[in-house]
């Protein structure tokens, strides 16, 4: 993979909450354009904290994170122009139709000139059923909501995409479709940072995989390196060593 300027970058990023818990400890991480980085870890490992820091929802205790070279702490609004976010449970406005939700979030993302056709195209791209386009989303399944969430990210067309447990609760078909879309985003040159518990899909889609434990990135492997290793075994080994001093 050719070296570009990292779209997503964490530089010694730490977060200690008011209750004293160190949620993130000097995280260094870079995601290049056209790269999918999967963050694995148990609950409380610091994956979501990392995403929250990238989105400027919480301030770092020390260190910095950058989106497209912009320090999120210093200029969060400018930084967020270059990132899309898809959460575990994509939350949408139930009384709005899929297209209305898409239109609203696209406008928030700065896309004010999109047409109905653009929205339909995005929804087709994520394989949302045509009949659902103008239906209210309150009756959508989790998979449909997830697809719509990704459609929102697609129409925003930001260079970076943050995904927080996106495959959690999806059925195998929906999860497979999701991976296809991720692969397309990679082809388009997006830098994707995905937090997940799903070791198998992380191995399947990730260009790099990092394992977090107690706020620290304790292991990082490239796709090539993982060819010769058993990620499942690695993950379990690292999790089992919890309580012992973490080492990268």
């Amino acid at each position, binding site marked *: 993979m050719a070296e570009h300027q990292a779209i997503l970058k964490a530089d010694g990023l730490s977060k200690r909450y008011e209750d004293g818990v160190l949620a993130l400890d000097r995280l260094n991480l870079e995601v290049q354009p056209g790269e999918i980085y999967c963050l694995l870890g148990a609950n409380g490992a610091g994956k979501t904290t990392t995403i929250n820091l990238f989105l400027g929802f919480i301030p770092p205790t020390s260190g910095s994170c950058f989106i497209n070279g912009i320090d999120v702490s210093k200029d969060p*609004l400018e930084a967020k*122009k270059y990132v899309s976010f898809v959460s575990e449970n994509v939350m949408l406005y139930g009384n709005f139709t899929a297209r209305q939700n898409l239109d609203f979030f696209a*406008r928030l993302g700065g896309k004010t000139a999109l047409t109905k056709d653009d929205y339909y195209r995005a929804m087709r791209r994520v394989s949302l059923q045509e009949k659902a386009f103008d239906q209210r989303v309150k009756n959508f399944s989790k998979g449909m909501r997830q697809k719509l969430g990704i459609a929102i990210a697609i129409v925003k067309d930001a260079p970076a995409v943050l995904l927080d447990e996106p495959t959690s609760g999806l059925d195998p078909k929906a999860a497979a479709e999701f991976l296809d879309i991720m692969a397309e985003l990679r082809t388009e040159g997006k830098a994707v940072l995905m937090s997940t518990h799903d070791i198998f899909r992380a191995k399947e889609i990730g260009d790099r995989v990092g394992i977090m434990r107690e706020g620290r990135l304790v292991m990082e492997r490239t796709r090539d390196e993982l060819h010769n290793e058993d990620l499942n075994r690695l993950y379990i080994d690292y999790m089992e060593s919890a309580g012992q001093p973490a080492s990268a």
Partner: protein
Amino acid sequence: MWRTIVKKELLETIFSYRFPLFAVICLLLVPLSMAVNQAAYAKRVRDYSDQVRLADEAAAAIKIQDIMAGTVAIRGFRRPAPLSVFTQGFESTLPRYYEFTQDGFKPGESATDDETILSVQGKVDFVFLVQMVISLIAMLFASDMVSGEKESGTLRAMLANSLPRDTLLSGKIGGGFLALWVPFLLAFLFGAVVLMFGAFPLAGGDTAVRVLIVLLATSLFILTYFTIGIAVSTSTSKARTSLVAILIVWAAFQLIVPRLGDMIARLAHPVRTETQVSLQKSLLVRSLDAETAKELGRQYDLIFKGAPEGAADNENSPERKKWDPIRDDIQNRARETKSQQLSAIDETYLQERRRQLDLAVNLSLVSPSAAFARFIADVCGTGELERAKYVEAVRSHQMALDNELFSKVKRTLMMHEGGGMSMSFSAQPVDASKLPRFTITPATVAETLKANARSLISLLVWLIAPFAFAYAKFVKYDVR
């Protein structure tokens, strides 16, 4: 970006089950309350016209003998306030008329005499609906605007974009308020049409301006409550907690603080009733008159003791020449003393009321609802200002009647030492058709605004403070 948020809030509210419920409540109750109060107003006007006609007829039939006998009681009626269709205020508790006699004035019965036991539950008028129903709905609409979105995760989804929080907050307030205001405005306009069909004098005098003030003040009042709801919502992280907090805040503002203010003021500065004051004045007049009669009798007996027969009736007799200036002097002094002491009683009473009212007003300013109700009642001519104007008009009418009618007959009542009494009269002609008519000069709009400066400041503070509070909270709101 702001418009996008406004549009989204507007649509989200419109699509919710709450909106049609609110719209139906507004569109039914607001015009209905106006129509019902319009009918009641029309009835009061008819009663007023009949009673004024009868009183005029009675006044025209006044004879000098009636005045000599002290049986003349002239009634001055208060014209019902047209804008009482918006708020009843003191409309039914103010005396319908005052009765003016040589001894002073006293209040007549009020319109409450016509009411049934059901009226103890309060009257449903426009201001009641706004205060008790629309304000609560406004707060409930706002209750989950921040905490609810946090709970559902949509707040996180929105703020993952390059969206300034102040834009989001003001957009939420703008859109949410618009969703409330539009049905309210339609209901108000519909109500105005209903009033016009009922021959309401909308174009008379400054009524139209006052109606516009009512509309504007009510709109701002709804915005205030909506913003208070948003402020509560930004202080909690769960919609259910917001709901409970909102109900507590609403009850405090609507039910507790205003009543507590009045109760504390009544306890701290008790005030006698108008009837008690009238009675006190009557007793004073009676006592002063008796003293004067005694003094006159004593002087009369001194001067005319041993005087030839007919000396008292002969204007040229030396006794009579001595008696006349003494009598006039005693009567003038008595009149002055009476006037001073009666004024002192009135002044003390007014001071007591002012003190109580000032405390009640100041305490109630803690609640935007009380400030709003006081302001609207004054704008509609059914509030404290109208009561003060009424009393002012009553006093000046009494003075006018004293000059034009009661002073035309001079009664000289004397109590002699032996216990006997005698009375003499001197009378000037009276043209009953030229007696002054009782009128109340209504407060002008400028006077109303000036008199309500404190209420307006309170409303303004309540408009700005919750927004500032919500802003301060929302900037640091944890959206995770």
